[in-house]
């Protein structure tokens, strides 16, 4: 096993990996940019090295700087987390060339899966089911011919794409040309590659993915599916395992296809095979993510496995310690991605200082967080703050637990999307498991009134008591949080003390 591992990431995932390292008696090396000196991952790690300015390309995306820290810190392996360099085959190659183990698949597997069209060609050979469409990037004339043949609506996608960039849905032939041009130019701008391919558009699809895991001795297992249909602008917001529509038989068929995909790519370590599922529960291969996923905790909770531990073991050359028939899915887990964004204002990012943090805990609640009270959320990176994961015996138990935990959760100073999860969890369609990738957009398009506003009088009284116990002169300062003003709102026996405190603050 490794003695020291560098984590080339930040935020909650860096903390998650550092925790696994400590549990395994591996020393962790964190890296940080100028704005992350006080970030939680730096506080939790055994070693931490500065790697440059806030801009990701000069810090967390800078392979040369990260390899330099790996050398100086004496790390043997590099865990890339998700995002940043995690799916960069050149970085994986550079790690190997510099003598560091990259904790993930080989650069060859990453390359094969990195381009959607190339992955398609390989997977077709492995007999993996696909949404009807083109295997290659195609020009506008070929696109028109193919669309006519498979029938509208169709979807245009960037070959190098991801995260919804360079994607266009086309309903009729007269829309195709302009959509094609837009998709090409967006693909060029986002990925430096304007290759676009076309496939049939599946109406009301679900997004279901299968977690797989391979060792370096040819063993690959599947660890159950995750339902990821709750998305906003093609970004996942909530994930759960198992999926409400996947039964044992479908899980096995899907799992076996996923294992076939992994084997065709000679894949090892953690990976995820994404599928689109249509209304008849047919599933089609979408793509493979060659990294640990944000939503891996739901799989951990229902399988009882620790995927980061497993990554470390497998990367150090060990065999998988179990076989497919040992894997059991038990209970139900749901994850909420807590973002620094304002649900009342079009999900606009809301960075800033966290002035108050009250975190839920208790039975069946797991929190993977990168924030703490007093920390300032930087504007430079992804606004994911934390993941709140609920676990219970049944899906209903889990929903109730999460509602309880969300009731306890309070993040003050910045806006977060916590209230959105409550709205989703209380939605009758969500509770019934009736999901598709358009679910959240439809929910958000409906007007919404929080039914729980039963205590306006208490809010008024509370506000007045806050005002009455506040040292004078601090209340009206816009944006400023008042200085710590003691711990008791009980009527103070001495106003002198309060005045003295205010005075001393004023002269400072």
């Amino acid at each position, binding site marked *: 096993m490794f003695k020291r591992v560098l984590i080339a990431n930040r935020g909650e995932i860096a903390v998650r990996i550092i925790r696994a390292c400590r549990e395994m008696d591996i020393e962790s090396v964190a890296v940080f940019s100028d704005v992350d000196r006080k970030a939680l991952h730096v506080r939790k790690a055994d070693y931490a090295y500065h790697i440059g300015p806030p801009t990701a390309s000069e810090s967390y995306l800078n392979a040369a700087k990260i390899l330099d820290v790996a050398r100086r810190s004496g790390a043997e392996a590099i865990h890339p987390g998700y995002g940043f360099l995690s799916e960069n085959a050149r970085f994986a190659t550079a790690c190997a060339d510099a003598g560091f183990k990259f904790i993930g698949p080989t650069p060859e597997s990453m390359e094969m899966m990195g381009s959607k069209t190339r992955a398609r060609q390989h997977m077709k050979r492995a007999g993996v089911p696909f949404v009807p469409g083109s295997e290659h990037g195609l020009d506008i004339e070929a696109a028109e011919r193919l669309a006519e043949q498979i029938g509208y609506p169709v979807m245009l996608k960037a070959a190098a794409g991801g995260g919804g960039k360079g994607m266009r849905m086309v309903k009729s032939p007269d829309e195709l040309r302009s959509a094609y041009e837009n998709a090409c130019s967006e693909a060029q701008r986002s990925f430096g590659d304007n290759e676009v391919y076309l496939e049939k558009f599946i109406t009301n699809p679900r997004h279901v993915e299968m977690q797989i895991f391979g060792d370096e001795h040819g063993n690959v297992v599947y660890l159950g599916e995750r339902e990821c249909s709750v998305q906003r602008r093609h970004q996942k917001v909530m994930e759960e395992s198992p999926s409400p529509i996947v039964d044992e038989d479908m899980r096995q068929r899907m799992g076996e296809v996923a294992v076939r995909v992994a084997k065709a790519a000679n894949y090892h370590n953690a990976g995820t095979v994404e599928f689109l599922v249509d209304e008849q529960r047919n599933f089609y291969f979408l793509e493979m993510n060659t990294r640990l996923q944000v939503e891996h905790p739901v799989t951990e909770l229902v399988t009882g496995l620790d995927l980061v531990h497993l990554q470390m073991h497998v990367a150090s050359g060990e065999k998988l310690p179990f076989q497919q028939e040992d894997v059991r899915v038990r209970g139900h887990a749901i994850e909420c991605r807590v973002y620094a964004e304002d649900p009342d*204002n*079009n*999900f*606009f*990012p*809301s*960075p*800033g200082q966290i*002035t*108050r943090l*009250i975190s839920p805990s208790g039975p069946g609640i797991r929190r993977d967080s990168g924030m703490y009270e007093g920390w300032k959320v930087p*504007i430079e990176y992804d*606004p994911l703050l934390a993941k709140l994961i609920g676990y219970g015996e049944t899906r209903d138990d889990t929903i109730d637990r999460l509602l309880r935990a*969300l*009731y306890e959760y*309070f993040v*003050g*100073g910045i806006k977060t999307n916590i*209230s959105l999860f*409550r709205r989703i969890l209380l939605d009758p369609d969500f509770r019934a498991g009736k999901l598709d990738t358009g679910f959240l957009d439809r929910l958000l398009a409906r007007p919404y009134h*929080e039914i*729980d*506003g*039963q*205590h*306006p*009088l*208490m*809010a*008024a*009284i*509370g*506000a*007045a*008591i*806050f*005002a*009455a*116990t506040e040292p004078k*002169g601090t*209340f*009206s300062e*816009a*944006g400023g*949080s*008042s200085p*710590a*003003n*003691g*711990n*008791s*709102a*009980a*009527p103070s026996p001495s106003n002198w003390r309060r005045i003295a405190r205010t005075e001393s603050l004023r002269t400072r």
Partner: protein
Amino acid sequence: MTYDVVVDGKTHQLELTRGDKTWRCKIDDQEIEVDAALTARDVLSMLVGGKAYEIKRERSLQGELHMVIGSARYAVDVQDPRSLRTRRAVAGTEAGPQRLKAPMPGKIVRVMVKEKDEVKAGQSILVMEAMKMQNEMKSPKNGKVQKILTAEGSTVNAGDTLAIIE
């Protein structure tokens, strides 16, 4: 102490009296006894007739006040009719010029009004881009655009005044 407290648009008259251990509170002619303890800054524990409430206070950069009770959130405005400070603040919020401030660092993509334009509360004044997202900044009140202190394409910092509506 007497306050006018506006909760989600509805005004409540409130009279607070400190008792020995509790507060006596007269609100909209209803007498309520409140045992209140500040458990942390911005976190108030209240016991009212045996019922427990945890009230969390939130203030935005623009100075808006919210009370959060469990999962419910209330927009609140506290006015102390006798306080000079409140009178000044009230003058600032309703009658006087209002500053439209940048909520975070970013870039101004579009300015949608000109100086001296008449605007309605909620009307878009400009579009700002930050963290790769575009956001419309809206007028806080009915009035006239007194000044625009930024231009399309310029970079702004959090808290910068972008426009003044009078």
